[in-house]
């Protein structure tokens, strides 16, 4: 039966080729445009660390106070500071309440390769737990341990990009690299690590590339390496490095791993207690507000998807809806134009269900073809976007956001078929309601 319907449907599609092509084009253009724009949105809204996103937490402490937050203005005015002061970060770290925890900040150093021109690289000063917590993929060697943290050793883990640039064609583990005129021993090299969004530090934009190198936080603090990321102060910090460390400026990111709900509750209590204690010590004279976010929550809270992308997406969805409304009209025209044929089938004994099936099969074929066209248009649209915006390749964050992956391909085709079937519902219903006798009599 289905096979017969399929044959009839093909015949039907061929009979009114112009209308069929128009319908497929309407669906295809709608899907293609919509998916080109949505690829970026879907890429940006993805979960960067699916298996641990509910176990990694970011604590916030209100060191700025409600008045200062209000006066900073803008839509973020009501939010707590997104980073911690050095004092608080160290205190939370020492308390060791999570399974793992790390304090960290972004740094920039110059690499002075023998025989080449010096260049600048971005890195991260962090703790040993960082690599396990965020599932950093190692290509060679391994992370440093707590001992290296405690002893402020000169060790470094290189990112894939820097490793390839300075040590082409060989394993750098065991060699040294010169950063800002100091030698660091290379103990590990990461694989290409695409993290979208760059959730563990959003201060440099949510879609930054991962770092070129990682050094122990303690070493960076001892070397007085300043932060390359954002610093927010509500009052002037005292002069000098020590002044900066003691100040109320926030510039440290802090993450803690809490695998169970009980641990989360315990940490929340601890954080509240810590803030209250700091308030009693006179550090701030407003109620000590705290917050704890897991990864998904944090990305929403930090508004990581740019507003421009949301606007684009909405307009693109609007375009898809218009295209589908269009397709409804076209299919209505097509089925009504064939009322004689459908009536004849009904008069010769086909049930209403048979006619219905035939129309549905026809609609599905249109949806599938529209999906394929949409897919081709999406690929073309993304290629145009990449060329226009001068984006990087598949192994960079900006480039990856403008590439179709398998998931998007499947989504595209499914959306196309479902959308076309939805828009085919009413025309199909109308077609199956045809009164055979009346139609035949008129003719």
């Amino acid at each position: 039966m289905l096979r017969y319907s399929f044959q009839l449907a093909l015949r039907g599609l061929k009979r009114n080729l112009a209308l069929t092509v128009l319908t497929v084009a309407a669906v295809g253009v709608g899907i293609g445009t919509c998916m080109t724009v949505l690829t970026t949105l879907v890429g940006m809204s993805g979960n960067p660390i699916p298996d641990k996103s509910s176990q990694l937490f970011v604590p916030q402490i209100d060191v700025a106070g409600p008045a200062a937050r209000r006066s900073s203005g803008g839509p973020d005015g009501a939010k707590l500071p997104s980073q911690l002061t050095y004092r608080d970060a160290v205190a939370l770290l020492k308390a060791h309440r999570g399974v793992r925890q790390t304090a960290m900040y972004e740094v920039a150093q110059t690499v002075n390769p023998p025989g080449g021109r010096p260049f600048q690289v971005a890195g991260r000063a962090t703790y040993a737990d960082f690599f396990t917590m965020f599932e950093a993929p190692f290509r060679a060697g391994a992370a440093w341990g707590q001992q290296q943290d405690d002893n402020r050793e000169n060790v470094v883990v290189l990112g894939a990009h820097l490793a390839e640039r300075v040590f082409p064609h060989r394993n750098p583990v065991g060699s040294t690299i010169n950063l800002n005129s100091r030698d660091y021993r290379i103990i590990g090299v990461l694989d290409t690590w695409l993290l979208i969004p760059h959730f563990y530090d959003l201060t440099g934009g949510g879609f930054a590339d991962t770092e070129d190198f990682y050094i122990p936080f303690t070493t960076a603090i001892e070397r007085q390496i300043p932060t390359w990321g954002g610093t927010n102060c509500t009052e002037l910090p005292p002069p000098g490095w020590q002044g900066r460390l003691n100040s109320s400026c926030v510039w440290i990111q802090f993450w803690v791993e809490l695998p169970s709900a009980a641990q989360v509750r315990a940490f929340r209590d601890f954080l509240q207690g810590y803030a209250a204690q700091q308030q009693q010590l006179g550090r701030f004279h407003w109620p000590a507000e705290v917050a704890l976010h897991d990864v998904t929550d944090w990305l929403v809270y930090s508004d990581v998807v740019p507003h421009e992308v949301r606007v684009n997406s909405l307009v693109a969805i609007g375009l898809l809806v218009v295209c589908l409304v269009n397709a409804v009209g076209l299919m209505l025209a097509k089925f009504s134009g064939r009322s004689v044929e459908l009536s004849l089938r009904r008069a010769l004994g086909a049930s209403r269900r048979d006619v219905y099936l035939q129309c549905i099969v026809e609609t599905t074929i249109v949806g599938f073809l529209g999906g394929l066209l949409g897919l081709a248009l999406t690929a073309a649209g993304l290629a145009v976007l990449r060329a226009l915006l001068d984006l990087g390749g598949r192994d960079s964050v900006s480039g990856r956001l403008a590439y179709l992956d398998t998931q998007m391909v499947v989504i595209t085709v499914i959306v196309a078929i479902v959308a076309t079937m939805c828009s085919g519902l009413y025309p199909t219903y109308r077609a199956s309601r045809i009164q055979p006798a009346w139609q035949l009599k008129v003719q």
Partner: protein
Amino acid sequence: MEILPILSTLRRNKVGALLIGLQIALTLAIVCNCLSVIQQYREQMARPSGMDESNVFSVLNTWVGQPDDLKSRTAADVAALRSMPGVLDAEATNGFPLGGAALVTGISLKPDQKQPNASTTEYFVDEHGLAVYGVKLIAGRWFSAAEVKDQHMGEDESAASVVLTRSLARTLFPSGDALGQVVYVNSTSPIRVVGIVERAQSPWTGGGASPFASSVENSIFLPHQFIGSFASYLVRTRPGALETAMGAVRERLYAVTRRRVILSVSPFREIRQRAYQSQHSLSILLAVLCALLLTVTACGIVGLVLYWVAQRRRQIGMRRALGARRVDILRYFQLENLLIAGTGAALGIAIGVAGNTWLATTLILNRMSIGYLAVGAVVVLALSQVAVLWPALRAAAIPPAAAIRDL
């Protein structure tokens, strides 16, 4: 022309009319909102920065290692830049309009004020600043060499004098007597306003999610010699000498010392482009989407009306046989389309206004003005009239004999 027969036909063809009306409504709502966004972005992008944009370039520089003689290094670099042929003047600074980096702080009229009167960008300049930025001094004077103090990165020396932009001067002193007044920036020591410049934009464009939207022209210049491990040199050339100077600048600086990293050498044109990148690409994308939307809607109208014409072939033939002229048939379809599109446009205006509330808050833009709705409605109605023309002409070409054929 009678409207009643059209209405009675439409009543029998509700779904088709509804589909066209819905397309028109959505298209109008989206197009006028997009036009409003594009126009506001164009206005933002057309704002002058206050700099002598065609003759300025920046050099971002950092040092190898952590040298402790930053002051003499910076001085040597600036001297080298100033001595280049074609260069009018140069200096080291912490930031410049549209540059993407600088300090933002509160500025107050009283010492120890809890809520500052305004937020502002701080630019650190020396006595050369006026010539290097190319800003226009409209009142008072610029700094003298004696006023300029060293300012190390991350520390804050207090200054005794300040130059404000006109916009900030008006915000702080609405009566227009800013010159000679005292303001407080980050401390309790008074700073006297010695000059006012026409305009100097903030390093951010105020578009998108930036919280500095309201203060895009609030800037102050402080007499500080900026000394940091990372510095931007701003260089202003004689007209026409920009490309040559930019081509030679790397070698000139490497001749001073090679133990440095030159992160970028960018003409102001490029800096402006980078600053407005997101507005620019969003404008293009929205324009493309609008063009597609209008095309699809037009095609939809053509398709559906062609179908109607085919469906009513016999009735049209009958009307013709009963004496209706071709132009009557043409008019009929045009008027019918105007009725549907007009209703759709009215709905579209309602959707457009509702959508604009969300859009304006999301992109931190002004509400759409009524003009866009009017322009959008006219465009969409005209488009649908053009789209209906071909099917209507085909309808008009139906011979009266069609009334009796196929019977």
